[in-house]
């Protein structure tokens, strides 16, 4: 009948069933995802197959995005503190009230103590770029990313050695030496998948060094339970053997590197016999491995890992590993390591603007005030630490001593330093003295409980964001597209920051108000790119993979782009590098000048045990992300605590049985642990997964469940790079 319900298309009655392409945020790997949304609710998540490396794969954490979205413990109303700081007495407030409270408090601090008295912290990514911009427009130089508690050693070592980031071609390698890079638990789907294929291929060889029988170790052809923190000694002896026997890529080193003589001089004594006492690995094994790696070169990778921070010598360890790759001549070789083929570089090479260049929508003017940690400042202990990332370990002391100047406030977005930074006891005491703490988060975290104002954030499934460029062999672009509107009361950090900027009087600094304007600005009006990113969530350049020192690869590239001269491509590698010498630096003169003994790899600062009987090490699990996911129902059901790994002989020596509780302690702290007895760890080593042992009475499911390794870590940092040191000496005490 005309005009009746029956006359309508059946689809009108069926409700909406659509796919939204976005970017995951259950960890920091930023995998491209595909979200199925039925009647406005996300019901299914999978990898975004437009990224061929993903296909439809996704991990347990990624799949749990829906579980996080609808977790009943999620924050949906702003809270303002009414009791003492940390006492957990709150009142609900409207978003307007909460934001105006934050703005007026920040205004007051700026007037009384100066804008530099506010600290700002976030993990890297869009939220960090946004917050850094907010901080500098407000007038504070004190921005902190998670870097110094995570990948800063590798970032720093790459910068000092190559002048840029390098990447690993696991896919085509024949031989990989893995130094505790636990890719099968700290997942990054494209990388982990490539590594899994490698490990499962009988014609390839995987060597894993780890004090613990990790998932990676379980897939190794040979596993060496190296003594914790002693990677450096192992690599120094490998380098020694190669230099002793002249088994390295002479032509490459001569042409592209500086400092071979200094390296040789430094490695005279680091023989395979010498390293035995540090690593516990047999000298003959080193000789054999050195020979095998050399024979596999250049299709070999010495994998520097992501976050390792094994000892104070972290910078040296990581540089030594990079230099091992260099000696094997695997740079810009298939199955070796390579540098990013950036859109800028490709456009220049092809003499056409084929790949979109973005402009930053986050203006960050230089505020002209030095930082509390001196990061990036000439003459400071942290002169080689990037200014915008800072050193998290320096915060507590700076607050407690109010040096170098008054520090009164801290704005944190989904950052939980009371779990992820060393010595949280001291950090808690420091936080207690602040006048303003603002926490933007989806959960009432340990840190949120110390706040004056808690702002409930929308999760990534509810957020539209800007464009992200992924650098690598082939550049790609991703964009977070929201699958549903934010739950009542929550909003994105972008909206929060934009409103606060208006209230603080510097809204004009931003060339955008809405996300549409932000995206258009960022893409410089490239509507085709934006349209693809809304529809597909992932856009990749279609160039053939290009390894500049691989003849076949260069030829294939030039066949595809006939107008590009072969020589022109090869010459890209001949350019001056962005290091002080313009070459790959085996020896860094400017580092040596500031940190004697650190210019070239050598055996320094390798002790982590400090006369304690055991070394406590920690790491990621495949189920949880740092201090972020412990309350997510699906993941909590899989892993709700983190018992301490202990070798049977250690347990026996202390009269401990499975599931017994005991304490581990050192001069920093004392932590209660439950014992998990396993053959999969060295008798002198103990292991904890990260992110547990929380103090979150408002999240009762995870409150005081499991143990926190951070409580036993000192605020000492690794020279040059400022990294937190996550291995430490402890003793076992009976409960």
């Amino acid at each position, binding site marked *: 009948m005309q005009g009746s319900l029956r006359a309508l298309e059946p689809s009108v009655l069926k409700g909406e069933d659509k796919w939204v392409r976005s970017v995951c945020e259950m960890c920091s790997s930023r995998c491209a995802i595909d979200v199925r949304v039925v009647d406005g609710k996300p019901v299914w998540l999978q990898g975004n197959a437009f990224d061929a490396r993903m296909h439809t794969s996704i991990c347990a954490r990624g799949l749990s995005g829906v579980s996080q979205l609808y977790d009943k413990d999620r924050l949906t109303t702003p809270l303002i503190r009414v009791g003492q700081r940390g006492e957990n007495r709150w009142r609900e407030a409207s978003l307007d009230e909460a934001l105006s409270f934050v703005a007026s408090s920040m205004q007051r601090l700026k007037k009384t103590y100066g804008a530099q008295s506010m600290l700002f912290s976030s993990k890297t990514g869009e939220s960090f770029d946004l917050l850094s911009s907010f901080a500098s427009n407000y007038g504070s130089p004190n921005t902190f990313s998670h870097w110094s508690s995570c990948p800063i050693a590798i970032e720093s070592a790459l910068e000092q050695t190559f002048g840029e980031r390098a990447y690993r071609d696991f896919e085509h390698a024949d031989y990989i030496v893995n130094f505790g890079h636990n890719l099968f638990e700290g997942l990054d789907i494209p990388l982990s998948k490539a590594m*899994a294929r490698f490990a499962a291929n009988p014609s390839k060889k995987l060597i894993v060094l780890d004090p613990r*029988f990790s*998932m990676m170790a379980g*897939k190794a052809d040979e596993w060496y339970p190296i003594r914790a923190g002693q990677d450096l000694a192992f690599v120094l002896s490998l380098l020694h053997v190669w230099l002793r026997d002249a088994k390295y890529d002479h032509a490459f080193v001569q042409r592209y590197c500086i400092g071979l003589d200094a390296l040789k001089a430094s490695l005279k004594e680091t023989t395979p016999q010498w390293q035995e006492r540090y690593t516990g690995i047999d000298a003959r094994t080193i000789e054999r491995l050195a020979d095998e790696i050399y024979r596999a070169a250049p299709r070999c990778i010495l994998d520097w890992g992501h976050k390792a921070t094994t000892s104070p010598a972290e910078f040296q360890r990581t540089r030594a590993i990079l230099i091992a790759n260099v000696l094997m001549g695997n740079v810009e070789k298939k199955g070796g390591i390579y540098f990013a083929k950036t859109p800028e570089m490709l456009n220049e090479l092809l003499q056409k603007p084929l790949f979109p260049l973005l402009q930053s929508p986050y203006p960050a003017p230089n505020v002209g005030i030095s930082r509390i940690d001196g990061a990036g400042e000439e003459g400071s202990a942290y002169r080689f630490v990037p200014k915008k990332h800072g050193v998290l370990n320096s915060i507590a002391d700076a607050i407690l001593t109010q040096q170098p100047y008054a520090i009164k406030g801290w704005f944190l977005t989904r950052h939980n330093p009371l779990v992820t930074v060393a010595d949280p006891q001291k950090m808690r005491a420091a936080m207690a003295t602040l006048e303003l703490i603002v926490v933007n988060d989806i959960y009432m975290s340990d840190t949120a409980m110390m706040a004056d104002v808690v702002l409930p954030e929308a999760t990534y499934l509810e957020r539209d964001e800007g464009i992200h460029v992924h650098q690598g062999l082939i550049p790609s672009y991703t964009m977070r597209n929201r699958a549903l509107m934010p739950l009542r009361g929550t909003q994105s950090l972008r909206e929060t920051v934009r409103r606060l900027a208006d209230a603080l009087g510097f809204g004009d600094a931003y060339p955008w108000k809405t996300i549409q304007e932000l995206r258009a600005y960022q893409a410089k009006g490239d509507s085709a790119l934006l349209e693809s990113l809304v529809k597909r969530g992932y856009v990749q350049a279609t160039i053939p993979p290009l390894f500049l020192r691989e003849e076949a690869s260069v030829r294939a590239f030039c066949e595809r782009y006939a107008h590009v001269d072969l020589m022109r491509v090869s010459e890209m590698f001949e350019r001056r590098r962005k290091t002080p010498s313009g070459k790959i630096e085996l020896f860094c003169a400017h580092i040596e000048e500031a940190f004697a003994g650190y210019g070239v790899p050598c055996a320094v600062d390798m002790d982590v045990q400090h006369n304690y009987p055991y070394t406590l090490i920690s790491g990621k699990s*495949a189920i949880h992300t740092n201090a972020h996911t412990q309350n997510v129902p699906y993941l909590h059901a899989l892993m709700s605590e983190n018992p301490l790994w202990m070798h049977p002989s250690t347990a026996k020596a202390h009269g401990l049985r499975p599931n017994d509780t005991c304490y581990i302690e050192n001069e920093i702290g004392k932590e209660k642990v439950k014992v998990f007895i396993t053959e*999969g760890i060295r008798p002198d080593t103990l292991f904890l997964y990260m992110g547990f042992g929380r103090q979150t009475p408002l999240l009762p499911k995870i409150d005081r469940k499991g143990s926190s390794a951070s409580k036993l870590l000192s605020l000492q940092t690794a020279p040059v790079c400022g990294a937190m040191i996550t291995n430490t000496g402890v003793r076992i005490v009976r409960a």
Partner: protein
Amino acid sequence: MAKAYRLIFDENLCIGCQACNVACRLENDVPEEVYRLQVHVTTHGVFPHLGMHFERRSCVMCDEPPCVSVCPTGASFQSKDGLVHIHESQCITCKYCILACPYHARFINPVKNVVEKCTFCFESRLSKALDPACVSVCTTEALRFGDMDQEDSAVAMLSRKETVLFPKAHLGTKPKVCFIPARKGAKV
């Protein structure tokens, strides 16, 4: 046409990440305290000579299913493709099938109070020519699924190339789920 389904679990590729486990829960709305699918990871050997074993624990879709013959009401049945399913409305929760299953694959859904297990995601995915949820999300592509009658299917090709083993093969249940055993590490 009837299908000869097979699911291959490659222990060499599995990293025990539990993506399959969570995917199954999300796809099939499995209540929190029970599982249709888990991967158990165990370490064996004596330090430092160790090995890791990965075991997929779920229904193996027997060609000769002991759970069907013991069912007093016909709730447990086998489809023309040889898949074992449960008519929820006919299940009286007598638990005979739970005891009969040598793979410990069945359990009582505490919300519905009926016996439940893996279905290869038959209704929501397989019947629409989609792979089971666990197969489609596997982070390392350790799971392969398909029709053995199609010579060029991934499972047929992989079965020709690799030695596949069937769990508890000696019981004569003829599972459709098989595995490629780990090549590395200390032997059990």
